């Protein structure tokens, strides 16, 4: 008779052999070739490399090789480096609180070596001979002298060859390579002063010369179009310092591929950062679209916990609210001020073009001066200087307008407007543009506490549904702040005796009804925050002139008004206001370089 399994004698507890421990650790640290690459590259960088050459074969499944020109190791150190928790970076537990180098867990090389066919060749400056170590599945096969240049060359072959269960989970070479490339991009962006080469299956994928600043690296990686639409971020509160570049909405994607965050130089995400970024772009981009963003967050090492995620992909902040607020402010300052970093441009007005500014440009609406931009700190915890944006001349804040002067060419489909600018062609959606203009006017007036309100002749009585009436009653104070003269007349009827000046020409009935519907749907956070875009949106829908074709004079006024806004590229609800078609792009489309 068979006994139930639970009745069998318990297996004796055994201490796991090192090789198994390493394999288990490998499960945490090494997921796929990309994670191997990450560990190796960070080791190379920690060794002071100025050039890192990476080679992968078959998406990294057959080979991941990283060669650097860093300090290299002598034989003892080389052997130590492949022992579990052997690390030159961590001696006591308290050191964990002030981790400033990139790789620190000490288990990486040992783990990788335990699940691959591993070779390491390393040499120090001036040493007679280098060391070569060969390890198969965690077992040292050979340690011998080898002639080698200064630096370290690690090759990881046939990852998981001895762990079929994990090898099975590797994806196609193409998918694995996508991950490899993503890791490469992050490292290349994090260390712009280092020369990087990525070769895949014997072909060059990237050759990135050492760059002076992030912008050059971004240009090398993503092309001039993306780089041309970035604004430098420089803001901080003395503790948390934010740097990098924020993209402008004409460029956006449906995924976060273009959004990269570095916390103390380490590529890392955090829900706090994602939330802050979304918040900063909330009235600029439609939900679900992401602008290019290369964000650097620097803060004292004791305010961030990097040891949360085994693969170090995520960090935790000790003061999340503060970090979030500083990030939001930093990005909003960046995308609302300053001019696009562009190449040389012919600034002489062209014949027949109108200057978009007939008066000196308005200063930013926000009290930007209250936060003098702090240059990114050369953090004691962060020896890399590469991130500092190129110095910006201390000129007066330039308008964010996508054109300095323009010519009105005409209309498409009776709806969209075509403009010629010095840079090419601009298509404008008047309704979105109008929403943006209204929104910023209301916002500006509200911030000054002076919303001009046009009296109505005679006051209108507006009847709404009971639910609408409840919403209006709840927000009467807010409506007054927004410039509405609305009074409860009883029986779900309201007396409207004034409207915000800029939308005073519209019929009060439909306007109030739409506003009530918007208030009913609500939004996130304080009513003030979402009520403004709501009013702008409703006003845009109701606005005079958008049921017919705008006259030239109205269009000129709109273009001028839009060019004066802080964020001329999108409506407050995130729809694009303009589509820019640069001459460069036109030349390319016509095959003229």
């Amino acid at each position: 008779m068979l006994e139930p399994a639970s009745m069998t004698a318990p297996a004796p507890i055994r201490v796991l052999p090192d090789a198994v421990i390493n394999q288990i650790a490998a499960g945490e640290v090494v997921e796929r070739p990309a994670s191997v690459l990450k560990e190796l590259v960070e080791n190379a960088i920690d060794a002071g490399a100025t050039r890192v050459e990476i080679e992968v074969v078959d998406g990294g499944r057959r080979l991941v090789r990283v060669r650097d020109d860093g300090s290299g190791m002598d034989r003892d150190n080389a052997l130590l480096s492949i022992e579990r928790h052997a690390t030159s970076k961590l001696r006591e537990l308290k050191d964990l609180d002030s981790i400033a180098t990139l790789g620190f867990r000490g288990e990486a090389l040992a783990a990788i070596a335990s699940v691959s066919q591993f070779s390491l060749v390393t040499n120090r400056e001036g040493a007679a001979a280098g060391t070569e170590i060969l390890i198969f599945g965690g077992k040292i096969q050979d340690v011998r002298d080898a002639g080698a240049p200064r630096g370290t060359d690690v090759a990881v072959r046939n990852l998981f060859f001895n762990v079929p269960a994990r090898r099975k989970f590797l994806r196609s070479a193409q998918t694995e390579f996508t991950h490899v490339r993503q890791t490469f991009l992050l490292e290349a962006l994090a260390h712009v002063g280092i020369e990087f080469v990525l070769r895949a299956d014997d072909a060059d994928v990237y050759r990135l010369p050492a760059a002076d600043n992030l912008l050059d690296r971004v240009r090398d990686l993503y092309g001039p179009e993306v780089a041309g639409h970035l604004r430098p971020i420089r803001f901080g509160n003395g503790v948390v310092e934010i740097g990098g570049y924020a993209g402008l909405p004409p460029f956006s994607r449906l995924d976060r591929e273009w959004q990269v965050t570095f916390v103390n130089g380490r590529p890392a995400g955090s829900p706090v950062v994602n939330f802050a970024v979304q918040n900063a772009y909330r009235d600029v981009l439609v939900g679900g679209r992401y602008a290019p963003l290369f964000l650097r967050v620097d803060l004292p090492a004791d305010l961030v916990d990097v040891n949360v995620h085994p693969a170090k992909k995520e960090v935790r902040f000790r003061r999340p609210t503060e970090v979030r607020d500083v990030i939001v402010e930093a990005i909003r300052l960046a995308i609302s001020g300053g001019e696009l970093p562009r190449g040389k441009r012919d600034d002489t007005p062209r014949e027949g073009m109108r200057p978009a500014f007939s008066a000196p440009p308005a200063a930013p609406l926000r009290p930007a001066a209250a936060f003098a931009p702090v240059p990114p700190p050369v953090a004691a915890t962060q020896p890399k200087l590469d991130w500092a944006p190129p110095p910006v001349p201390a000129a007066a804040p330039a308008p964010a307008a996508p054109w300095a002067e323009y010519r009105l060419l005409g209309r498409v489909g009776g709806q969209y407007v075509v403009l010629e600018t010095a840079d090419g062609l601009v298509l404008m959606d008047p309704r979105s543009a109008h929403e943006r203009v209204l929104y910023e006017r209301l916002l500006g007036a509200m911030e000054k506490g002076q919303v001009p309100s046009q009296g109505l002749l005679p006051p209108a009585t507006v009847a709404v549904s009971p639910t609408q009436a409840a919403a209006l009653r709840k927000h009467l104070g807010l409506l007054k702040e927004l410039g509405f003269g609305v009074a409860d007349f009883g029986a779900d009827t309201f007396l409207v005796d004034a409207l915000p000046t800029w939308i005073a020409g519209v019929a009060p009935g439909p306007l109030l009804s739409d506003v009530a519907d918007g208030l009913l749907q609500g939004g996130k956070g304080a009513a003030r925050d979402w009520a403004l875009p709501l009013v702008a949106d409703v006003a845009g829908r109701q606005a005079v002139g958008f049921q017919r074709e705008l006259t030239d004079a109205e269009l000129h006024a709109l273009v001028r008004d839009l060019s004066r806004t802080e964020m001329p590229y999108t409506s407050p609800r995130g729809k694009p206001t303009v589509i820019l078609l640069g001459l460069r792009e036109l030349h390319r489309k016509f095959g003229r370089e």
Partner: protein
Amino acid sequence: MKIKVNKEAMIDCLQKIQSVINPRNALPVLSNVLMKAEAGKLELTATDMSLTVRATLDAEVLEAGTTTLPAKRIFGVFRELSVEEAEMDVSDQNVASIQAGSSYFRIHGISEADYPNLPEMADPKVYVVDQAAFRNMLKLTSYGASVDANRPLLNGVLLSFKAGKLSVVATDSRRLALAEHEVEFPADAELDLIVPLKTVEELVRTLGENGTLKILATPKQIAFEFDRILIVSKLVEGTYPNFRQVIPQANGERVAMERETLLTAVRRTSQLVIDAVSGVKLTFTKNRLEILATAPEIGEARETMDVKYKGPDIAISFNPAFLMDPLKALTTDEVYLDLMDDTSPGVLRSSISFVYVLMPIRVS
């Protein structure tokens, strides 16, 4: 149909009617002008279905008939003719052959059977008014009409025939313009008619300076007959807001000002009002007016002018465009502004029968 017409007369008539044609209409025949030749006359008609304009000119009719031809093309052809007279021969297939001096044109038309008929006007009320006076009343008021398509009533200009006078009113609920004129009509012809703005604009363009105008009205249609022109328009249906209740009964304090001086002063200061709606502030002190426009990030503009005023100091803000509109339309030398306080409407008057009520802008 076969006619001989004078080039200039033809151009003159086509100019008067073709602005009615909607350049983007769905029915091709509506891009055409209806031509009817009969008994020494040629009638030209254009319509957008709501508004129809007909002009008549003398022509030598060799063979009576009717057709429709593309308005823009016919106009272009006649404008470029090198001789004074053209002969037009239209076949039964609506193909027009135009011979003028050494030029020859052949233009394809569409059968008049496809062209909409002029609406019937059964038992209309009839009014006779002076052309020039009527045109002036329209000019004095029509700028005040709303252009918001959501408010069809206010998109029109009200012609109110009541108590022996014609009141012409336009408002967009921020200002209201009213002009009045004595007109004789029987008591049973007291009517309120709301005329669409497009029709008013057409009238302002085509009405002459001399002679009278005959207005025929039914509850749904209105027709204007003058010179050799007939304009027939749909009316806006509905009841116009009671404009009398909007005009303040109490007069308040009266300021007398030179119209031209005020207009230019407001125009100058409003240069700084970037969005044309932030308002200019008018401060009245004894015999003095200061007009101030400020734009926080741009600067300010200040004008002072002499006025006739003895009341207490008063300051009030208006939309400069709304203040300028009546000043531009008026021709009198002096205007009067009646003010109560900074939140009550200002009332602008002149020596003629004209009232303009303007709501101030207040800052909350």
